[in-house]
Structure formats: structure tokens, C-alpha cells
């Protein structure tokens, strides 16, 4: 994978990230933050990879990273879901 | 061509048919203007102002009229004034032709071409000449002020330390131009306004002013006649209407009636019984008093107090607001004259809807049909 291509992807992704959020009602600020925070748990992919690639130390660091990232993902999506449930009309 | 402005000679008529401003307009349009001395006095226009506008001040009726081609007035000419008119001249004033048959006949004898501002068609194009509208608008406005001044109660809702004052209830009967303006004015003062009319399309107009429309439940068609004016209504409808009006008047603090049917006496909509059913301290202003009144107890140009209910029969409210009434009427008249007379030339286009519509005598004939019928029958 060459550098330029990756850069292209990175830049386009930033553009997409910039554009998809336009107007968000204040009540959704926290859930949106929480949801996108869960997505930043994508670090789990890196964590998984590093358990293998990183040798002994890497494996253990990776293991901790996996735990951390999983907390982020699982907790994040679940908390978001709970918050959003409140929006259901009683 | 010479146009003449006479001083009004009817008691209480404070308006004038031309203001210095419209005098100037008419002169600019190619006419010569004569203004009888003192014509503008009661509407606060001095002879000097007319002179400055280019008019010639004439001392009396005969010197004003002799040789004049067009005579402009507010109220109808007296028979004496007609005598002073040149034959074949043109005459414009407010005039209920069906009520003034004698005058109309005299005008035909003199071969005067007569125009009544009452007869200007109610079309969009003719609105700037529509004196009925401009004057009715004043009547509607003023009737509310006078009514409110008569009332022993407040118009608006007020919540004060000494208790809550409920808003006055105002009922407007007949929502033509005067009625609509009355609605608007009463609304402004904070009263609770409802209105009633026989023509169904008026409902939307009443609501467009934020008031409630009183509906009559009757199988029969409501009273819509020609040209958007009202006509007389059926018996069942009349009965339902009576019941409704009785119910509404009993609840009202101020009732303003404006119901008219062109060429007919005003319909009597509030009888003595209904008046006696009203709260003491309530007020009725009858704008139809000129044509007999919508209330049985109305006395033209009198304010009567019937068991604590005040019935005001003032017939000429516009004359109590003479500055603006004159300004608007004069503009209506000058628009009409300017419409007929282009570049100093008289063009009596008998095909023209407005000119033909407003004309009631021409070359010795009565051209207004209803008037003609009445004249031949009497």
C-alpha cells in the first residue's frame, strides 16, 4: 500500500467526517459524542494486530490494548443505546 | 372647462368636495376651478389655501355656478342650487338617487348629466373613486370610538389589584366596509368581537380580521344579490336570524349595525324587545339610521336612552371626522373627474363601466334603471 494512496484515503475520510455532521439538536450532542467515541474503539483492530506482530512485549501490551479498546467499544455502544432509549416517547 | 366647488349647506355637513390638494390636481388636469368662499372652513381649509392652489374664490352660489361645466359637492344639491345650474352641465355628489326622486327629476329637466358617488361600481379598478368605501370606513372606525365612549364599561380585559375586568363583547351586524373597519377598531381596543352578515363570503373576511363570525342555521340561501351587495332574505332565514340576533345582543355590551340593502330601506334587525333584553349600560350605534335604521328604536341623529340602553342614531359620522373625510372624499371625486376628463377634454364614454355605472341622468333621461322605475311610478 503506498503512502499517497493512504493519504488520499485519510483526506477523503476527513472530508466525509466533516460533512456528515451538520446540524445536531443539543439533546443529541451527548449520544452522538458517545456513539462516535465507540467508533474510535476501532483501535481494537490495531490492538488485535499488535498481539501478533509485536513480539512478547507487544503481545502483552496488545492484550491490554485489546481490553481497553473493547471497553471503549462495548461500553460506548451500550451507553449510547441506553441514552437513545430515553428519546422514545413515553 | 370650469369646475365649481360649493359650500355645503346642510346642517352638520362639515366636509367639502375638494381640498386645496385636489383643486391643484384638477387644475393640473386642465380644468379651471371655482371655490365658493368658506367652502373649506369647517374642514379647516381657508379660502387662501384654495387660492394658493390655483382656485378662484367666488362669493356666493350663483356666482360660483353660472357658467360652470362641472359641479362637485358632498351632499345633494338643493333644488335652488339646481336652478342656478347651467343647462347641460355635469354634477357629482353623494346621492341616494332612489330617495331623491324630486331632485333627480329637476336635474333631467335641466338636462344635467348627474353622477352619484354612491353608484360608482365596486370593482377593483374603481376603488380610488369609491367614496362609499372611504366614508363607510370612517363611519365604522368612528362608531366604535363613540360607542366605547358611551359605554359604562372598559373594552379590554384588565387584571388589576381591584379585580379582573372582563373584555367587552362587541357585536357587529353587517360586515361591509363599515362593519369590517368597526371589527378592526373594536379588536384593537381589546374587545371580544363577533360579526354577522347575510352574505356567506363575509365569514372569511371577518375571520381575516381576527373576529368570530356568527352563523345562522337555515336551509335557505343567504342573501347575496347583484354586484356583491346584499338582497332581502327568505322568511325562514329571517326567523333564524332574529333568534340568533336576540341571543347575541343580550350578551353584548356594544352593538354596531351597518346592514344596508341598496335602493331599499335598511332591514330592521333589532326590535324593541331585543333592546329591552340587553344589559343596562349597553350601547347600540346604528350606522343605518340614514336609511331608517337597523334598530326599531333608532332616531336619526339623536342619542336616545331606552331604559339605560343608549341608542345612537348619528347618521353622518364621516362629518365628525371632517379633515380626513374631506381629504378622502375629495380624492375620490378628483379621481373620478380625472378619469372622465383627459387633457382638459370631457370624454363621456358611455361604454365605460365606471362612467356609465355612476351616471343617473344624461341628456334629460334618467339612466339609472331602478331610479327611473321609481320616477315613472310616482
Amino acid at each position: 500500500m503506498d503512502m499517497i494512496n493512504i493519504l488520499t484515503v485519510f483526506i477523503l475520510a476527513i472530508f466525509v467526517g466533516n460533512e456528515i455532521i451538520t446540524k445536531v439538536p443539543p439533546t443529541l450532542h451527548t449520544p452522538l459524542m458517545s456513539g462516535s467515541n465507540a467508533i474510535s474503539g476501532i483501535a481494537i483492530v490495531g490492538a488485535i494486530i499488535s498481539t501478533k506482530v509485536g513480539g512478547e512485549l507487544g503481545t502483552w501490551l496488545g492484550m491490554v490494548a485489546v481490553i481497553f479498546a473493547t471497553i471503549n467499544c462495548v461500553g460506548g455502544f451500550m451507553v449510547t443505546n441506553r441514552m437513545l432509549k430515553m428519546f422514545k416517547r413515553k | 372647462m370650469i369646475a365649481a366647488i360649493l359650500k355645503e349647506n346642510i346642517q352638520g355637513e362639515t366636509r367639502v368636495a375638494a381640498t386645496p390638494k385636489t383643486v391643484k390636481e384638477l387644475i393640473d388636469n386642465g380644468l379651471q376651478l371655482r371655490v365658493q368662499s368658506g367652502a373649506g372652513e369647517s374642514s379647516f381649509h381657508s379660502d387662501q389655501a384654495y387660492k394658493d392652489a390655483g382656485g378662484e374664490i367666488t362669493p356666493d352660489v350663483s356666482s360660483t355656478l353660472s357658467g360652470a361645466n362641472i359641479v362637485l359637492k358632498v351632499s345633494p344639491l338643493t333644488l335652488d342650487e339646481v336652478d342656478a345650474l347651467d343647462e347641460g352641465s355635469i354634477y357629482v355628489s353623494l346621492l341616494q338617487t332612489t330617495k331623491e326622486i324630486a331632485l333627480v327629476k329637476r336635474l333631467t329637466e335641466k338636462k344635467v348629466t348627474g353622477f352619484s358617488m354612491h353608484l360608482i361600481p365596486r370593482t377593483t379598478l374603481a376603488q380610488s373613486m369609491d367614496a362609499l368605501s372611504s366614508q363607510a370606513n370612517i363611519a365604522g372606525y368612528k362608531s366604535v370610538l363613540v360607542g366605547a365612549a358611551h359605554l359604562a364599561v372598559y373594552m379590554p380585559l384588565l387584571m388589576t389589584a381591584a379585580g379582573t375586568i372582563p373584555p367587552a363583547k362587541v357585536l357587529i351586524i353587517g360586515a361591509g366596509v363599515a362593519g369590517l373597519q368597526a371589527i378592526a377598531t373594536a379588536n384593537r381596543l381589546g374587545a371580544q368581537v363577533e360579526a354577522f352578515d347575510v352574505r356567506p363570503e363575509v365569514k372569511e373576511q371577518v375571520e381575516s380580521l381576527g373576529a368570530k363570525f356568527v352563523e345562522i342555521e337555515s336551509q335557505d340561501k343567504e342573501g347575496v344579490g347583484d354586484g356583491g351587495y346584499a338582497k332581502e332574505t327568505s322568511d325562514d332565514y329571517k326567523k333564524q336570524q332574529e333568534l340568533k340576533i336576540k341571543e347575541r345582543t343580550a350578551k353584548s355590551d356594544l352593538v354596531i349595525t351597518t346592514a344596508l340593502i341598496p335602493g331599499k330601506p335598511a332591514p330592521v334587525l333589532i326590535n324593541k324587545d331585543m333592546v329591552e333584553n340587553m344589559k343596562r349600560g349597553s350601547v347600540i350605534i346604528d350606522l343605518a339610521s340614514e336609511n331608517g335604521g337597523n334598530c326599531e328604536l333608532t332616531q336619526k341623529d339623536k342619542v336616545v336612552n331606552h331604559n339605560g340602553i343608549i341608542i345612537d342614531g348619528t347618521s353622518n359620522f364621516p362629518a365628525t371626522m371632517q379633515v380626513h373625510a374631506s381629504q378622502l372624499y375629495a380624492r375620490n371625486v378628483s379621481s373620478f373627474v380625472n378619469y372622465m376628463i383627459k387633457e382638459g377634454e370631457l370624454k363621456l364614454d358611455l361604454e365605460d363601466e365606471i362612467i356609465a355605472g355612476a351616471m343617473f341622468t344624461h341628456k334629460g333621461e334618467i339612466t339609472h334603471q331602478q331610479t327611473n322605475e321609481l320616477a315613472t311610478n310616482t
Partner: protein
Amino acid sequence: MEYTNLAYVAAAVLFIIGIKRLGSPKTAQSGNAIASIGMLIAIIATVASFDLLDFKLIAIGMIIGSIIGATFAIRVQMTQMPQMVAIFNGFGGGASALVAASEFFTKHGTADLNTFISGTIILSVFIGTLTFSGSFIAFGKLQGFVSGKPIVFSGLQILNGFMVIGIVLIGTLITIGVNQDLNLFYGIVVLAVLLGVTLTIPIGGADMPVVISLLNSYSGIAASATGFVLMNNGLIISGALVGASGLILTNIMCKGMNRSLANVIFGAVGLEQETLSTDGKQINVKSSTTDEAAMILDAADKVIIVPGYGLAVAQAQHAAREVAEQLELMGKTVLYAIHPVAGRMPGHMNVLLAEANVPYDKLKDLGDINPEFEDCDVAIILGANDVVNPAARHDTSSPIYGMPILDVDKSRTVIVNKRTMNPGFAGIQNELFGFENTVMVFGDAKEMLTTLYKDLKEL
């Protein structure tokens, strides 16, 4: 590798859709679900692509993480949501930093650690660690472990400046390969931890959500940087998405508070404007913003508006009616409580509200409205003061003792709008403003109502 990357693209697309849908109340729930599916795809694809992985280890890690995350997520109270987000976010940043660190250690001393790689590693470690420590401080502040008040000491900004310079220097040294001492690397970690703390502690509790959002954006950037380290498309795209959208969200939040981001981060140096006192007695008031008011109103069924002289001064009658109409559109019952002496002349409020065309049947006088406060959710006091002063009911020494007042304090929540803590016509202090169920929204009534209207529409 082909398929893995394809899966990453699919995951990224789902993230995009998910974030987009999270922005609108109707689609938010599905958005979250879609994003989580994206995550699942990314994880499965990653696991599947490496045959030499230690599955057991990973499984154990994931199970531990899931249990911790799920427990927190389920246990936490609704009011503690923001701190949860903060702490989860911290873990995410930490993970990125750890991965980058692991990569650093692995490649340390080898030729693989070229300038680009080591640069991105440093970036990832730095941002990830900062996010980690900053998020924990944010958590602590919101949870009450650390004082919610801004903690400031002189020289803080200077200290921060030095730390940033330090990090840049060390980072450059490592990157250009001048010095490969591992201690330098640890130095960066330590500085990043410190910086996370010092950047977060001076920020007041009310501004925390903005900071969390910013840290969230950082953790995205950290993930993206890690992606560059690992040359992994999935991390790069998703991280960039979160980084960019997080920044936008942070900005939106700042705008909502009428502040700039810079003002939130650096400006809040030590002003505690929440406690105001008038004549002798101290009243502790809770001051709030219009969008909080909007949210309180959103939850209400019955709202009573109490206009006073201030509404007339601000000529805010039209704005008040607009807000009332908006509330009615939202299905709430709205009434106006007219005190007989509100304003400066008999019937002042009537004149005012009639001008704004408020229907008469919505105006209730003292006698009619007072029983209504009992089951009223929110009373909004607009520039009224004396007429809602509870001292009239119980304080025999008060010059207005015995005057009937509007019992607004009986309603569940009272929102009071006025410009300052100044008293009204009678010149006496109003204890209502310090009541438990009272929230003050300071400002000119017209401006406040205009903003409130906007906020209500945006809910």
C-alpha cells in the same frame, strides 16, 4: 488482505452511515446499531486475516473488556452518562497509545523504524496518552472525585507551553533518529499524561462536555495515527472520521454555549459567577443556559408563563408568545399567570399580551391560576419579581407580607429570567431565586426568549 481491506471499507461505510444517522433524533438509535455492526465486521475481518494470532489471548482480552464495559454501561445512572463517555473514551485513547507503543518496542532498533513510522508512533502515543489522562480527569471532575471547579494556578499556561515544547523536541529527536534512548520515549509518555491533566483541570464542570467531545476527537486522531503506523485502512478511515466529526461536534457544542473553543479551553480561568448576594442574606442561585431550559421544558407537560415588568421593559411580549406557541406545538399546555399588580400600571400585562395577540382564554388571574401551580411542571418567570416573592406568604417582617402572590414555587421547576440579581419595585430580595427547584437564566428577556425559541425548535 484483500478481503480484510474490503471489510474495513464496508465497516467505514457503516460508520459513516451510523454517525450520520446519530445526528437526527428519529434515526439515532438505528445509527448506533449500524455503527456497532460496522465494528463487528472490522473485528471479525481482522481476526480472520491473521492465522497466527493467539486467539485465546485475544478472546480473554475481549471478554474482560466486554464485561467491564458492559457493567459500567448498565450500572451507570442516567445522570452519570457524560463521565461514562469520558472514561470509555480514555480507554480508547489508551488502546491506541498502547498499540503504537508496542509497535515502537518491536521495531525499536530495526530499520523499520523510519522517520515516518516513528513520527506517527510518537503522534499516536502522545495523543492517545493525553486522551487517556485527560479523560480520566474529566471523569473525575464530573463524578466528583476531583473538584468540579476550575483548578487554576499561576504559570499553568506557561507550564503547558514548556511541556508541549518538550514533547516536540523529544519527538523530533526520536523521529529523526538522533537519539534512540528508550527513556526519551518514556519521557513523552510522562509528559503526555501530565499535559492531559493540566489541560483538563482548569476547565469548569459546565464546560466538561465540550472537553470530552474534544478528547473524543483526539482519540479518533490517535486511532488514525495508529492506522498509519500499521498501514491499516480501517483504522485510518474510521479514526479520521471520528477525528473530523468530533471536531465539528465540539464546535457545534461551543456555539450552543455561545463560546469559542479557545475560550472554553483557556478562557475559563477562575471565574465563579454562580453565587451572587444582595442585601446581606446570601442566595445561592443556579444559573443555566437557554438550551438547558429548553430541555427542561421539553420534558414538561404543563407550563405556566409568569410575565412581569421586565417583560414589558424588554418589549419581549412577542417573543414570549412565540415560545408559548412553540411549546403548544410540542403538545404542552401553556397558560399565562397574570398577577394583578404585575407591571407598572393596572392591566399592564394585559395590554402587553394583547399586543402580542395572546388569546384571552390563556390569561388566568391570581385566583384561577394559583391552584394550577400544584400540578405544573415548569413555571417560567419573565422579568417578574415582587409578584412571585414567597416572603409575602410567610415573612411577617417583609414589607409585602400579606399580599397575595403567584405560588410559582409550588411547580416542579421554576425557570426565572431577569438580567441581574437586582430587586424589583418593592426593593426587596427574593428568596425564590435560591430555591432548590429554581433555575435562573440571566439576560434580557427578549434575547433570552429568542434564543430559547431557537433551542426549542432544535430539540
